[in-house]
């Protein structure tokens, strides 16, 4: 792995393929599922998987395969946006804390600790209960809830890297502060950031589905994986496919993004 030539392992190929398919499904769902994800059909409700319905139908007779394909967009968008918000916020806080004067570090760290002291779910819960449920609020809520965790890690990374020999060498060589930050510090911090981000996308997707489970996520009848899981959970003992397939896709997309991110990161490090 480390130091070996960068050839593609089968797992990486598979995850890249999965992500590609997911992106296509997000952008043009009709390519995979031409039907209407919202088409209600009470007479064919609760049908098990079959040729007519690959993943079966839900409680209103809607085709689950179609809903999963169309729900890809919502889930991926939430995952990406929430991670972007979380890491963006965390980067600002972490850099401020790590690079600024002592008082700024103290203040920012305390602020992060305050945010972090809230259980993530509570933060998201409070935010959503105040501003109402929906895709946008749950995205912001997940970003807020995950930011402090990233911030702490970024801060400690910054602290470690900033005192490293090559930074010192750069300083001795006369490079300006900005140069030191941009050309030396950031790339090294970015390495761990990448892992965080890839872990984060998957996590955000899972988080958002948990919020839907508590009834705080997407509004019906939107096809969103977490909402589908939530709707299907009461029927899990009788109609397993309603929760199985959305669950599989949540796990699949989270796992694929993480895998790909990690393998890319390994390539970056070994080069």
């Amino acid at each position: 792995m480390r130091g070996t030539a960068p050839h593609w392992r089968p797992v990486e190929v598979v995850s890249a393929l999965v992500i590609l398919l997911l992106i296509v499904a997000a952008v043009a769902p009709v390519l995979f599922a031409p039907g209407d994800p919202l088409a209600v059909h009470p007479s064919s409700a609760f049908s098990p998987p079959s040729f007519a319905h690959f993943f079966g139908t839900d409680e209103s007779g809607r085709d689950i395969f179609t809903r999963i394909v169309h729900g890809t967009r919502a889930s991926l968008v939430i995952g990406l946006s929430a991670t972007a918000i979380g890491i963006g916020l965390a980067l600002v806080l972490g850099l401020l804390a790590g690079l600024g004067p002592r008082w700024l570090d103290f203040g920012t760290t305390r602020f992060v600790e305050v945010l972090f002291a809230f259980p993530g779910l509570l933060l998201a819960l409070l935010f959503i209960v105040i501003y109402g449920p929906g895709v946008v609020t749950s995205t912001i809520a997940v970003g807020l809830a995950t930011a402090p965790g990233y911030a702490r890690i970024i801060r400690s990374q910054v602290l470690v890297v900033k005192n490293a020999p090559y930074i010192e060498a750069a300083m001795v060589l006369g490079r300006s502060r900005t140069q030191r930050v941009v050309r030396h510090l950031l790339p090294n911090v970015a390495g761990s950031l990448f892992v965080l981000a890839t872990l984060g996308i998957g996590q955000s997707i899972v988080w958002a589905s948990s919020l839907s489970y508590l009834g705080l996520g997407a509004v019906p009848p939107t096809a969103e994986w977490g909402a589908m899981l939530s709707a299907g959970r009461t029927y899990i003992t009788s109609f397993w496919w309603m929760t199985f397939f959305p669950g599989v896709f949540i796990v699949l997309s989270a796992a694929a993004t993480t895998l790909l991110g990690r393998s890319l990161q390994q390539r970056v490090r070994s080069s």
Partner: protein
Amino acid sequence: MKRLIPTLVGIASIAVLVAGCSTTASTSTAPKSGGTLVYASGDAEPTCLDPHVGGNYPQALVATQYLESLVSKDKDGKIIPWLATKCAEAPDGLSWDFTLRDNVKFTDGTPLEADAVAANIAHLQDPSTKSSTGFLALAKVAKVTAVDTHTARISLSAPDSALLDSLSQPWLAIESPTALKRSQEVNCASPVGTGPFIVKKWDRQQSITLVRNDDYNSPPADAAHTGPAYLKAIQWRFLPDSASRYAALQAGTVDVIDNAQPDTIAAAEKTKNLQHVNAPRPGASNRIELNSSIAPFNDEKVREAFIRAAQVNPAVKSLFFGTAKRSYSPLSSVEALGYSEPSLFGYSQADAAKLLDEAGWTEKNADGYRVKDGRVLELSFPVSTNQSIPAEQSLFEQLQASTKEAGFKVDLHPLDLSSWYGALGANDYNLVSAPYTKVGPDVLRILFHSDGTVPAPSGYFANHAQIKDPALDALLTTASESSDATERAELYKQAQKIVMEGYYILPLYDQQNHYLLGAKVAGFRALPSVSTPELYDTWLR
């Protein structure tokens, strides 16, 4: 007019007493004494075990085991004796005399006498008790006097035909006056009554332990036996997740569950060792109310169009697996005076389109929704995730889809309980489904009288359809003061006709209340008054 109380009914067979359908296997083995029954409730844990405080259904469920009311109702809807053996209404209707049963003692030794009735009513009417349900039910009670040690006279400010119905509810149960003198904190943790069980311990968020009252001697007139209960103890647990609750029943970890979901009922009925008891709650049916105070439902044609466009029956059939019957009445099917008119609620997209055209909603926008004067025909529908079970939320989604065909844009907003009440209080809704459990047809007055549109200090009001019809008001007020049963029946029928013919409501089905029992459980029944479980006649095989 004297009310004739039927004499004590003979011991009836247990199967007959169970309201609704039951698959209790008839057994000729005699009831066995002993054992602990584990009951798992899907409702929230009460914050106070004394149903005088507040007054909601979870409290009623558990209080039925240790508290008793003055009267009860049998399965035909007739008032029957319980702690009161006779009730007599004065000719002017302004007072009622209740003759109490002899030799009944509360479990702390205090005898059941007229002063107990007075103490209880005083407790309910005292603001510091913070009673809601009981307080409202006793709105017309002026004072209580003891005619003699065993007769209490309740004096009213106006005749109240709903008094006996109210007194049959657990929220107005009779507690020991000695116990009521304790602090509310203590009384909430262990209320003292005359019931077949006693509250022994309450481990919050874990369980309530009830033990048998060995001196019990006051079953209601339609109970299956006399003397102490068979069960030695009951463990009352709270399992909020429906899937794991059913799994616990299947595994035998619990013996009885409530709030059974439709698919598990259907599955349970197929298995040999689970039993099903269907006991719809009294009061109103589950219905969708159309807010007639704001646009677009201030136009009756639009209301009717919505009802024409809403295809309810296929949804009810598929989502509820045949466990819920479609209702066409504002009242629950257990209410004898319920009036039903299916012809008003037929499904027809053509009629809906015609009505909307007549109402001026002739244009459609690009998404297919109707438009008038630049405004879209949009309806806000806050849905309480606490009050509406998942099957019902799915039903609303299907109605959203079928009314879309006619051009209605329905926005479903799933909300937690507080936010939901907030939206209602702010008049921020066009459609809403709010259950109301109360014994007797007087619930129509609470829901449809114009007084119900006046918000309580908390902002809450009950008349969500916002009906302000003087003719309807007159009918309901007269009915609530009438002592003539025939007159009342006619008045309530007229009232229900007005409500339904005005297209203010879309009735769906009864308030679902299903119990599932393990194979060991025998003799289980739901009290006909509020459909709460009465474990007095229950025994474990």
